[in-house]
């Protein structure tokens, strides 16, 4: 039986149209709907399924962020996590919070909580860094199974099917290990209203990075955040010859 630690991030909801701040310092987050990172939902689901299959004894959800990160943790609890840890990082520190810091926090917590498996989403849909799982594994010196599309328990360890370019790779790891969830790992359940109500009674511990002895000094500086280029308008051509000429010009034929 093992304890599973799941990292969840509160991000701008996937359905929201992102707007860049006029001063190019970031994106508008005030008054915008936020929800749990979809890949983290998959990670939570996988941990909860492990518990349901009696492969895990406890699921602990962790989130680093401002006070509202607790809502995301409640969602994780509603999905079936047993307890939650909120590592409060607010204000300017949160703006420069990077995967390296989160990885350090997760690594420290997995040692403190004696976790056997750490599961995180492969990346967050806001910064798309795709680094947290890898860095956490490196800091802990644990094996990693990234981009998992299937995780099975095999004698003394895990068999992880990974999504790689053009196919799948099957690896065996020992436990403890770090897993990052890919899109096809499972279909996350919907956090229903009664479960969200019940989740309010589950324990949620609040700590700070300082309690864990982790330095949150920024390692990078955001120079500029810009909108992606707008798609150029198409044009209607009078006949086939012009079309062919245009295609040749563009090097398509």
């Amino acid at each position, binding site marked *: 039986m093992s304890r599973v630690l799941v990292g969840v991030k509160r991000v701008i909801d*996937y*359905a929201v149209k992102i707007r860049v701040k006029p001063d190019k310092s970031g994106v508008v987050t005030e008054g915008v709907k936020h929800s749990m990172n979809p*890949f983290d939902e998959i990670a939570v689901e996988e941990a909860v399924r492990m518990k349901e299959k009696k492969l895990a004894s406890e699921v602990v959800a962790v989130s680093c962020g401002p006070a509202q990160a607790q809502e995301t943790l409640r969602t994780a609890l509603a999905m079936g996590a047993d307890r939650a840890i909120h590592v409060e990082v607010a204000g300017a520190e949160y703006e420069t919070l990077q995967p390296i810091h989160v990885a350090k926090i997760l690594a420290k917590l997995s040692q403190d909580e004696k976790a056997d498996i750490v599961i995180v989403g492969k990346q967050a*849909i806001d910064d798309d860094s795709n680094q947290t799982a890898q860095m956490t594994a490196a800091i802990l010196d644990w094996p990693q199974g990234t981009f998992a599309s299937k995780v099975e328990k095999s004698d003394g360890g895990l068999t992880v099917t990974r999504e790689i370019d053009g196919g799948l790779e099957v690896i065996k790891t020992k436990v403890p290990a770090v897993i990052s969830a890919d*899109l096809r790992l499972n*279909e996350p359940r*919907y956090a*229903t*209203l009664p479960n969200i109500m019940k989740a309010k009674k589950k324990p949620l511990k609040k700590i700070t990075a300082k309690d864990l002895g982790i330095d949150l000094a920024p390692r990078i500086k955001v120079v500029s955040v810009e909108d992606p280029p707008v798609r150029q308008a198409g044009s209607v051509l009078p006949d086939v010859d012009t079309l062919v000429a245009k295609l040749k010009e563009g090097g398509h034929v």
Partner: protein
Amino acid sequence: MSQPHRQAVLHLYKTLLFMGRDWPQGYDLFRKRLHKVFTKNSEETDPEKIKVMIKHGEFVVKEIEALYKLKKYRTMKRRYYDESA
């Protein structure tokens, strides 16, 4: 006035309202439509018929859940996996 299945109807209404918060065309539209449907059938007194309606409501809850899941999955797939072959 006897109100058979009152609890179940209230529960269904609350569940649907809660789910409406994620409705793609907005919560307001969902809430108005939901209210209209429930008001329309509010005069029903036959317990059997109400039971059938609750069953239908529960089916709708499942459908909305499936819709949300599929919408999210497809969006993710399009954003991160489409190799536009």
